[in-house]
């Protein structure tokens, strides 16, 4: 994957210095900070923050528990709504969710209560003597979960709680999905994704089989026959294409592929660095890519987007992170030509300037060139159609390219559910995927329970 950049130099900084660059972006609160911050919570009734949380965490209650010196109770409150509350505390865009909604998020009140950091404090400092959730009596039902990402893990845990047996089929070597492979390294440090998976599996009744990929060595037809229900948490495995000539040239790759390598490497100093690079896109992945390249030592990082700053998917908070790391945000320019050197390697890109004309994006006729040693595409993820190639999977109703589901996460095929990014429902966020998994598990459980009663 990263072979396409093998001609590039390695970072100037040594491994120790690089490790420092990739340390916790938002360091955890200490006990005093947590006490002060929790005391700022007004313990609202019908709290706006809860309404803003896709996973329905009872935020005032858990903050109240922290304030009353009941940190473990706080953690239990969080985990009972969101079993991946630890990673969500780190990766959630709280600035557009709970903290946006906080009643103290105005000038008079100074700032919103730091809900994300308090949540992390509770999870990190809880002292459970055993796994905090108990399994109900065994139901004898077996459920297949495809994908060990946030949606699949959340679904599996809730199903296990209800007494079902779960087998998770995961294509990659490790569980965790984007938490393990896709989130910027400085947002989830210390191998947290794996620790969280280990914690979640403590409940028992969940088996994970790695190297199992739908459309490759696994079919929905088989799963549907062999299990009582199936949950699809496939994510969006493919990166969108630019549709330009020379898109496969050395020096051009998908940002997600690079980030995955970066997340898995033991030695950051061995990664290829593009001293001058271009990141195409406007979402959080584009920001993650640009910032990480800057942290590796790239001197000239340009993030180029065809529309304006206010249209960017990345939040203000994320844009600030980019600016803090000397990433230049160039707007109103769209890729036109990949520029290659004599050896066929990327040397830059030509962009067409754009503007809005009668409500439509159009080019102005002007162009400019940016020199670059590498170009990273972060223009969005796409559905991997191979995964739904078997006869039964092909029948799944789609919404656009994604899987259609109803509000109970049911697909068009009875007994098959789906959640997370692979569905068309809601925003593509970790916390949303967790909620989908949880709700799907509840739907599966109630359907299977009804069947038992009827039988």
């Amino acid at each position, binding site marked *: 994957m990263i072979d396409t950049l093998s001609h590039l130099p390695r970072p100037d900084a040594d491994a120790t210095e690089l490790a420092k660059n990739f340390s916790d972006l938002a360091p955890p609160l200490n006990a005093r900070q947590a006490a002060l911050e929790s005391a700022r919570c007004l313990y609202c*009734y019908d709290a706006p923050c809860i309404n803003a949380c896709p996973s329905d965490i009872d935020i005032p209650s858990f903050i109240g528990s922290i304030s009353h010196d009941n940190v473990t109770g706080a953690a239990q409150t969080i985990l009972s709504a969101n079993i991946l509350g630890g990673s969500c505390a780190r990766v959630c865009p709280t600035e557009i969710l709970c903290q946006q909604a906080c009643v103290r998020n105005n000038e008079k009140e100074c700032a919103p209560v730091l809900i994300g950091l308090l949540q992390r404090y509770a999870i990190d400092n809880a002292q459970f003597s055993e796994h905090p959730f108990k399994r109900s009596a065994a139901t004898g039902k077996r459920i297949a979960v495809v994908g060990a990402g946030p949606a699949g893990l959340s679904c599996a845990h809730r199903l296990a709680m209800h007494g079902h047996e779960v087998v998770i089929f995961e294509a990659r070597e490790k569980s965790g999905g984007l938490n393990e492979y896709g989130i910027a390294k400085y947002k989830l440090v210390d191998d947290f994704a794996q620790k969280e998976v280990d914690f979640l599996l403590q409940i028992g009744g969940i088996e994970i089989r790695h190297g199992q990929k739908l459309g490759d060595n696994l079919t929905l037809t088989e799963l549907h026959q062999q299990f009582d229900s199936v949950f699809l948490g496939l994510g969006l495995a493919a990166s969108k294409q630019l549709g330009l000539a020379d898109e496969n040239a050395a020096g051009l790759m998908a940002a997600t592929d690079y980030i995955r390598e970066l997340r898995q490497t033991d030695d950051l100093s061995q990664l290829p660095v593009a001293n001058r690079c271009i990141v195409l896109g406007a979402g959080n992945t584009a920001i993650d890519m640009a910032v990480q390249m800057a942290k590796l030592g790239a001197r000239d990082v340009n993030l180029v987007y065809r529309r304006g700053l206010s249209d960017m998917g990345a939040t203000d908070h994320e844009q600030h992170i980019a600016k803090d790391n000397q990433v230049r945000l160039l707007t109103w320019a769209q890729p036109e030509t990949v520029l290659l050197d004599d050896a066929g390697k990327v040397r830059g890109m030509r962009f067409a300037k754009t503007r809005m004309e009668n409500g439509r994006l159009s080019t102005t006729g002007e162009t400019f060139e940016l020199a670059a040693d590498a170009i990273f595409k972060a223009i969005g993820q796409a559905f991997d159609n191979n995964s739904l190639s078997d006869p039964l999977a092909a029948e799944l109703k789609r919404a656009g390219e994604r899987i259609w589901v109803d509000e109970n996460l049911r697909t068009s095929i009875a007994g098959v559910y789906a959640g997370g990014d692979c569905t068309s429902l809601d925003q593509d966020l970790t916390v949303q995927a967790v909620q989908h998994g949880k709700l799907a598990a509840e739907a599966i459980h109630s359907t299977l329970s009804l069947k038992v009663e009827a039988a």
Partner: protein
Amino acid sequence: MADLSIEFAGIKSPNPFWLASAPPTDKAYNVVRAYEAGWGGVVWKTLGEDPAAVNVSSRYSALYGPNREVMGINNIELITDRSLEINLREITQVKKDWPDRALIVSLMVPCVEESWKYILPLVEATGADGIELNFGCPHGMPERGMGAAVGQVPEYVEMVTRWCKTYSSLPVIVKLTPNITDVRLSARAAHRGGADAVSLINTINSITSIDLDMMVAHPIVGSQSTHGGYCGAAVKPIALNMVAEIARDPETRGLPICGIGGIGTWRDAAEFVALGCGAVQVCTAAMLHGFRIVEDMKDGLSRWMDSKGYTSLNDFSGRAVGNTTDWKYLDINYQVIAKIDQDACIGCGRCHIACEDTSHQAIASLKQEDGTHKYEVIDDECVGCNLCQITCPVDDCIEMVVQDTGKPYLNWNEDPRNPYRVAS
């Protein structure tokens, strides 16, 4: 998890958290919501003789902390303003629907035997688990010869308690007023009358604040006001002391105590239990935050008990009573001195100014080259009063360090400096 269930004066409850007789327990709707939220029991808002009391508007006022935190509430509401018949019917139904929860009925009728003889069988017929005698209400009712007017006269307390034991087979809890000079006299009277338990404290006579434009106290009724009953976090220290006084009084030793007064968290409850309470009642905290607070109270108490290895409330109930004594038995040779953790100090200077202006000039303010100040305790001047530690906004920054004086335990009775000392 620890077992929070209790049996208090013969009344079983799944947890020690009861709602006190007050607006939150005024009617079936509230009580059912409380049980649904997980409260172990309720004391139904005080019943009286018909015609029912009539209330005024407005009724509450509060003392606030700097962040508009409510420190205490003052109220001038009377006993139930609904008919006896409605209340009894609702109590019967609620008890039937919630058999595992404690339901105690608070009562206040005139200080006449016939009145008690009439109402007690009606209450017993509801299936309620016990009765609580409201001898404490400090406003409105005393003017009618009830409430605190009874509670302030030990002879009346004893007499009415005896009537209740005569005309009812239910456990009788006597609720004590703090508006007296020595709460032990009331507790002893209740004990003599045959009370199964006492509960305390009822509210304290109070005026929370004055509207300086209208020149009238809060809560305002037209252009006037009156004193009310004070409750909430601010009264907890008074309640704890009164509970301790009764717990360590030889005449009432072993009499079950239900703690009331400023309980809002599991820790508050644990403190009352440590001073000998077998159950606690909560009102103000629920009125400020809703019934949901009981979840963290149960959870927090249970987790704390687990961390201490306590399996039931009995394991630590009364553990702090023996360590509560009279001043004259304290060790006059014991000495502590303040120590400031310079790494933790944020340099606010509060300890210095408090000691300099109002205590023993024992904290030096040392100006540093960079313009900041360093604060250091002058050991020879420090008397170990705790004031600096109290003013410090940083937890554990100022420690009171026990000094090795090399002197043995010596109390004031034995101290040669005491002209009235008891010769040993």
